[in-house]
């Protein structure tokens, strides 16, 4: 290991020459400020060498000065970057100071520890920084100008080309920092305060042999003495600090100078390669090739391309942009891929061996022992063993963001820096997760049965001895809570806890009739409670039947109750005068299933038949909505199951001449009414009246009470239209739209209405939309269904290897009698196998093309067909 390090050092000293260094670090007779760029490998390498070469007496580092106690943890061999110093106040803001393997600050700390040089942080304490919200994005004009003038696409690219390759020129770097400072608006008051603090801390140490490691921006101020000591900030209330693992993806997401790094893994490679960009590029491309399965030859080409690109761009070596471009062109066929990001940004999370929190230790030790992923990306796992489940539940109950319970034993796990931050915050509540979870559970104060039920479940899952307490709370609330939904939810939560469940369920049954008398605002809650309770116990059905008959209940809810039990006694509410709401509840309870239950349909049918006109008009929209969800396929199936109607009846009815026959039609098609019920019913009601003369009807049309059916009965669209337009009456208008719905030739009339005044125009527009959509949909659907169904047949008919299979498929296609397949059959008629050709000729005949039959004069079927028989 040591040898290895020696060798690395040799290699580094060969590569990293220090021409500017000796002039820069004249001697350590005064304190020397070493300007760095955060996370820069070139900075880190040069700094490391400076420390080794010149052995300063002490090193002062830009870092939170209240974090000195964490230095041992940072330099510990068991700490694997990326890590971060996390600073927080309980229930307050937090701040993060990330470190990469190539962060100069960390490199300096580790070199100091290795050489026995004392090192400490000298930036303002994190406690003070916490009170200053994040610094605003500084103006980037200077950077933009530099990029434009030097021909780089981004500032990062410029930085890499100017400073990362070869030796970093510290003098140039400082000059550059001075340029930045000179830009107006670049230096904030907070910067000035920090610089004052830095200067004061530096002054506290003897100047001789002091090396100050500091971001170039501040270093320039310190070098030039451009500091106003009076600006140093006042101390703030202390904050908590700890070293926590960090992750590469997060480092690349963070923005701003020093906070982030666009490709942490790549720049760590540069550091590991002693600043040799070429080796870092090759290493990255090799890893990428492994990830994408590219060959060695391609990888070599990619490495070459990266080098050529660098020279085309006038750079000393291939950097991140060259690696990305070369990978895309050579390894990924010009596409972008996550693999590039994974190889340059990196995926890993860091590790911290020494933490100051037993809770964090427990978390990391337990996850490792149980094989749970601690990664900064979501992963789903199924947990079957009790120990893991208990642990995850404890972490969840302690409100540490890590595991999300998806289903009974399915978890989604994701570690994030926030996980460790939360764990550290919990430390004050206990030394183990069991303890913390217990504290959390005991602190809950359930106010409703539902909350208490969750508490019982969590207490049972976390297994920390608070179950009796939770059960007691739940029992108390099951008596005190008067909210039906809360009780139902609680019963649902606790369906595995027999005793509590029966207690909650019994009380819910008791409360249900009262809850059904709720005002309209409470209806949704009661609805969902009803559904839950019905799911939980069959004994609830009886209660629901009672509610359906209860005259004091909310009409919607009693309809809902009847619907839930699929009751057929709809007449119950006729007298109550709130028919529409009752029926609305009835329909809502059954949702789309209403069209599938013959008993329910029959009941609705009889009930609708018995309704008075005004009531019927009230429920008409509800009816239509109730049956809108029934699928066309279902309607077709029922239609087929019914004895064939009288020839021509359909068209007669469609053309509107058969009003008298509508009843017969409806009778015969009773089952098909699933969809049509709402549509035909007004006609049926109308036709039940004695026939009247045209004159009588016209008069009725102007009477709002009679207009609806009078218009319907008029039958003549022009006649009705002229009346509707003269009266401009909403009832007559509605009736007219109904009439139009029955008549396919009424598009023009509907359009005229749709252009007219509301509310009739809306109705007309709906009817129009329904019509065109229905037609288009039905057409498209039928076509697609046929195609899909027969795709396999077509394929078999044309390409099956066995001739018998082809012949069979051809015959099946013929049986569809669908001209859609004529082309396929024509191709089959040229099949290389005679049997298939013959079958195809017959099949073609059944889709209307007799031309190929003549080729088979001897075939008995062909003869029959040609003689005029059916195929």
């Amino acid at each position: 290991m040591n040898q290895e390090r020696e060798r690395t050092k040799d290699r580094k000293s060969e590569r990293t020459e220090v021409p500017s260094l000796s002039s820069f670090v004249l001697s350590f007779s005064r304190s020397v400020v070493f300007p760095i760029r955060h996370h820069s490998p070139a900075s880190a390498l040069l700094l490391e060498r400076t420390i080794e070469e010149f052995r300063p007496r002490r090193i002062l580092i830009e870092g939170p000065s209240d974090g000195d106690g964490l230095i041992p943890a940072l330099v510990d061999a068991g700490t694997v970057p990326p890590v971060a110093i996390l600073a927080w106040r309980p229930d307050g803001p937090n701040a993060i100071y990330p470190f990469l393997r190539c962060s100069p600050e960390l490199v300096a700390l580790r070199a100091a520890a290795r050489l026995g040089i004392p090192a400490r942080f000298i930036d303002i304490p994190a406690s003070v920084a916490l009170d200053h919200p994040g610094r605003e994005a500084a103006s980037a004009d200077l950077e933009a100008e530099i990029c434009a003038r030097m021909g780089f696409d981004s500032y990062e690219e410029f930085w890499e080309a100017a400073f990362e390759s070869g030796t970093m020129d510290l003098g140039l770097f400082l000059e550059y920092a001075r340029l930045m400072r000179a830009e107006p608006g670049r230096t904030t008051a907070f910067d000035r305060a920090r610089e004052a603090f830095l200067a004061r801390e530096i002054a506290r140490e003897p100047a001789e042999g002091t090396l100050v490691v500091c971001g170039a921006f501040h270093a320039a101020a310190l070098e030039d003495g451009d500091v106003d000591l009076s600006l140093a900030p006042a101390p703030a209330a202390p904050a908590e600090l700890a070293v926590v693992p960090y992750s590469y993806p997060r480092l690349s997401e963070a923005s701003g100078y020093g906070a982030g790094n666009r490709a942490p893994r790549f720049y760590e490679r540069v550091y590991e390669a002693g600043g040799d960009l070429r080796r870092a590029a090759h290493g990255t491309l090799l890893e990428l090739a492994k990830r994408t399965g590219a060959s060695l030859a391609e990888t070599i080409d990619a490495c070459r391309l990266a080098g050529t690109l660098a020279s085309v761009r006038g750079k000393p070596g291939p950097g991140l942009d060259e690696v990305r471009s070369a990978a895309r062109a050579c390894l990924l066929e010009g596409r972008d891929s996550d693999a590039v990001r994974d190889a340059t940004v990196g995926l890993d999370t860091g590790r911290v061996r020494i933490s100051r929190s037993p809770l964090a230790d427990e978390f990391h030790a337990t996850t490792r022992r149980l094989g749970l992923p601690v990664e900064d990306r979501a992963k789903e796992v199924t947990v079957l063993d009790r120990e893991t489940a208990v642990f995850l539940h404890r972490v969840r109950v302690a409100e540490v963001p890590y595991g999300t319970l998806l289903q009974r034993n399915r978890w989604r796990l994701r570690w994030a820096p926030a996980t460790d931050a939360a764990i550290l915050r919990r430390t004050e509540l206990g030394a183990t997760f069991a303890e913390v979870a217990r504290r959390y559970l005991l602190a809950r104060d359930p106010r409703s049965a539902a909350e208490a039920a969750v508490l019982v479940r969590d207490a049972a899952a976390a297994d920390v001895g608070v179950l009796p307490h939770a059960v007691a709370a739940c029992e108390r609330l099951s008596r005190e809570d008067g909210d039906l939904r809360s009780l139902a939810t609680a019963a649902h939560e606790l369906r595995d806890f027999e005793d509590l469940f029966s207690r909650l369920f019994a009380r819910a049954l008791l409360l249900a009739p009262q809850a059904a008398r709720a005002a309209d605002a409470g209806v949704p809650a009661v609805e969902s409670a009803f559904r839950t309770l019905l799911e939980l116990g069959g004994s609830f059905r009886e209660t629901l039947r009672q509610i359906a008959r209860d005259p004091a209940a909310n009409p919607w809810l009693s309809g809902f109750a009847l619907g839930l039990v699929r009751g057929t006694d709809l007449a119950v509410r006729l007298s109550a005068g709130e028919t529409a709401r009752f029926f609305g509840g009835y329909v809502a309870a059954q949702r789309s299933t209403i069209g599938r239950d013959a008993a329910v349909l029959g009941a609705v049918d009889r009930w609708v038949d018995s309704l008075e006109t005004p009531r019927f008009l009230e429920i008409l929209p509800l009816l239509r909505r109730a049956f809108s969800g029934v699928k066309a396929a279902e309607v077709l199936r029922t239609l087929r199951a019914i004895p064939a109607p009288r020839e021509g009846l359909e068209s007669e009815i469609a053309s509107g001449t058969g009003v008298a026959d509508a009843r017969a039609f409806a009778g015969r098609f009773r089952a098909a009414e699933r969809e049509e019920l709402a549509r035909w019913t007004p006609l049926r009601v109308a036709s039940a009246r004695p026939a009247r003369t045209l004159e009588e009807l016209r008069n009725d049309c102007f009477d709002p009470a009679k207009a609806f059916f009078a218009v319907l009965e008029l039958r003549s669209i022009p006649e009705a239209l002229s009346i509707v337009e003269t009266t401009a009456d909403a009832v007559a208008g509605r009736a007219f739209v109904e009439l139009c719905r029955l008549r396919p030739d009424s598009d023009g009339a509907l359009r005229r209405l749709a252009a007219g005044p509301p509310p009739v125009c809306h109705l007309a527009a709906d009817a129009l939309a329904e019509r065109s959509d229905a037609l288009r949909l039905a057409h498209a659907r039928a076509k697609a269904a046929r195609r899909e169904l027969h795709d396999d047949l077509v394929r078999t008919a044309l390409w099956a290897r066995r001739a018998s299979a082809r012949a069979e498929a051809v015959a099946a296609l013929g049986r569809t009698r669908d001209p859609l397949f004529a082309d396929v059959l024509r191709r089959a008629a040229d099949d290389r196998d005679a049997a298939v050709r013959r079958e195809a000729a017959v099949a073609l005949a059944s889709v209307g093309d007799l031309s190929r039959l003549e080729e088979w004069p001897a075939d008995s079927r062909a003869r029959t067909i040609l003689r005029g028989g059916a195929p």
Partner: protein
Amino acid sequence: MGTIRQTAEERCAAELAALLAHDTDPRPPGWRLSPRAVERFILGSDTPVPIAPKFVGDRALVQVAIATLASDRALLLVGEPGTAKSRLSEHLAAAISGSSELVVQGTAGTTEDHLKYSWNYALLLAQGPGEAALVKSPVYRAMESGRIVRLEEVTRVLPEVQDALISILSEKCVAIPELNRSLPAARGFNVIATANTRDRGVNEMSSALRRRFNFVRLPVLEDLETEMAVVERRLGELKTEYDVRAEVPRDVVRVLTTVFQELRRGRTKSVLSTADLIGVLFQGAILAGQFGSGRVSADDAARSLAGAVARENPEELRLLRDFVETAGKAEPAWREFREAARRALT
């Protein structure tokens, strides 16, 4: 002005000469210009003389293309129709080899002869196989002289013919068994192929062949100003080439470019490219120059637009009508165009 269309090197002779005279950077063997001078030629520059950009787009893409040609991999430009693949390849060849005329148009009828060599059968019968009877393909000539050869629409070529490329690209050598010799490629030889993502896809290329190419994907221009700049510059060139004097007002260019971008983004994902847009405007310019006022009016533009859209996808005509009815209501240029479009699109 004898030919309809000049080659890139003829058109840009002055620029190339200036770049050559001032080029001090090292050149890859066989190249007439250094990679940096080639980049300047393609992307435009102020030094040493003003050089017009030939391609608008990501600088990094062009650099990858140039760097690829300097390596021993071949270059494949992939993109939607009208993303200036051919234009880029023509100018790259002109700058690197000094000539862009070595080109094979890939079609379903392209045979191996077009990629290697064939025979002058009269001579072959009269004198037997000999150098004189050899008919050299553009690829052959490029290998012989160390120049760039272009393969347009390589994915339209039948896979078995494409396979002939593999040996040329990997061995850089063509065997001529009839003459008992082979032709090794001179330094500077390389291949630029283009492939269209809309027609038969790149997937049609065998993986062995794909491995010999570096891929550069050219994106569709999404920025209005950028596309307008491209359109106006190309239009200027076309007008000079065909001696069309009509003026194309900026407002018309803006309106049509917006329409094209909207159609591309829209539901039908139109395939109308920048090249189509230039075609529409140029046609409008001809109409205005020959039959109109000498200034492209909204009517001229709308009429040629209707033709182009109807050719691609008649469904889009309806969308187009809806779009012009709703877009950019206030501006006078839009109002004028809307009225013209109503007349042209019904």
